[in-house]
């Protein structure tokens, strides 16, 4: 069976794409953010996953309001990035893994998740940036993107996203393959771009949430979507991706995962940025 080695979570912000393109990683503003990544890269260098499942939210590149899936699973041989309208460089296409895609799709529908499947899917910075941050050179992994709607309410509940993550993890562990797989969450942590409340950040909640992922991962499933907006800002709800990632790692019992590394830095752009790497024990 395939081996699920662990999970990674990182914030994504378009400005990071510009900072990478312009080589600003060691500038004063960026250094506390980028310096979080080398320990994670070292761990990945030791573990060498073959493929990753990426939980992310589309920001209006692939999906418009004409058709807005709650959960969408990629089933493409290649995923292209494209102009997102805000001036960040378009990045190289990413290779998909069709066997894992269809294994996930079959498993998820069998477990009664009514997902949308996508044989064509543009992936935006939320999907591409984590891969660039974890593997700054050529991307050595194939991917299966899983998009979770955070654009239009009603959003899937934290509880439902947790269940989706659990099912993705079960699917990976039951996949008849010798491959090593990791799961990635892209999003959060607290931030709000819109309204008079723009600039909202909640450090105490973010830190509590990161702690909870290690030994009490179901803690955040008590909150409904508006609770999460109130606590983390209207885009802070992207922490749903982190919840799916952690749920995929399996048991919620203390000691089920080992924290490899974390970083937390305020602010990059308007966002409280977080980074976590968790290994399956």
């Amino acid at each position: 069976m395939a081996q699920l080695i662990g999970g990674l979570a990182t914030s994504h912000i378009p400005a990071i794409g510009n900072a990478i393109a312009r080589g600003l990683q060691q500038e004063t503003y960026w250094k506390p953010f980028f310096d979080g990544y080398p320990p994670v890269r070292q761990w990945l260098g030791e573990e060498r996953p073959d493929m990753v499942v990426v939980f992310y939210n589309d920001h209006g590149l692939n999906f418009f309001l004409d058709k807005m899936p709650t959960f969408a699973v990629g089933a493409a041989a290649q995923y292209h990035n494209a102009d997102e309208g805000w001036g960040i460089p378009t990045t190289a296409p990413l290779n998909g893994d069709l066997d894992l895609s269809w294994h996930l799709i079959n498993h998820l529908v069998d477990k009664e998740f009514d997902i949308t499947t996508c044989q064509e899917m543009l992936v935006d910075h939320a999907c591409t940036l984590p891969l660039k941050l974890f593997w700054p050179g050529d991307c050595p992994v194939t991917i299966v993107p899983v998009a979770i709607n955070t654009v239009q309410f009603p959003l899937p509940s934290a509880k439902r996203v947790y269940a989706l993550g659990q099912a993705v993890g079960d699917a990976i562990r039951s996949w008849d393959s010798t491959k090593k797989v990791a799961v990635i969450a892209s999003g959060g942590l607290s931030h709000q771009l819109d309204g008079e409340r723009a600039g909202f950040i909640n450090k105490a909640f973010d830190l509590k949430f990161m702690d909870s992922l290690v030994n009490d991962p179901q803690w955040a499933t008590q909150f409904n979507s508006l609770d999460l907006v109130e606590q983390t800002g209207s885009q802070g709800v992207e922490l749903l991706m982190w919840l799916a990632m952690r749920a995929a790692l399996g048991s919620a019992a203390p000691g089920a995962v080992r924290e490899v590394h974390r970083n937390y830095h305020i602010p990059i752009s308007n966002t409280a940025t977080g980074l976590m790497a968790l290994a399956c024990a």
Partner: protein
Amino acid sequence: MTQPARQIPGTTPFDGTQARKGYALNKMCFSFNDAANRDAFVADEEGYMRRYGLNEEQAAAIRSRQVLQLIAAGGNAYYLAKFAGIFKLDMQDIGAQQTGMSKAEFQAKLNAAAFQ
């Protein structure tokens, strides 16, 4: 009795009401993923808005460049950001505009959050 909708100050969750209200505006902003469309908008803003069927509230909000007005007209933050991109505004410009702060004041507010 229907419960009054829960209010979060300074926040307009993009729900069904907003999605219905803002469809034309958001569809126009979604088109700004394409550089040719951004150029076409800049070349003829009024004609471009008519082509997407914006109502007067939405057209006035676009002309005003005011994000709060665009949200009130049904705009969604993710699509509106593509409109802001035409003018090379970053998220601190937009945050400053919505909160009535200078950009420096808004950045200071963000920096201060590290010491919460």
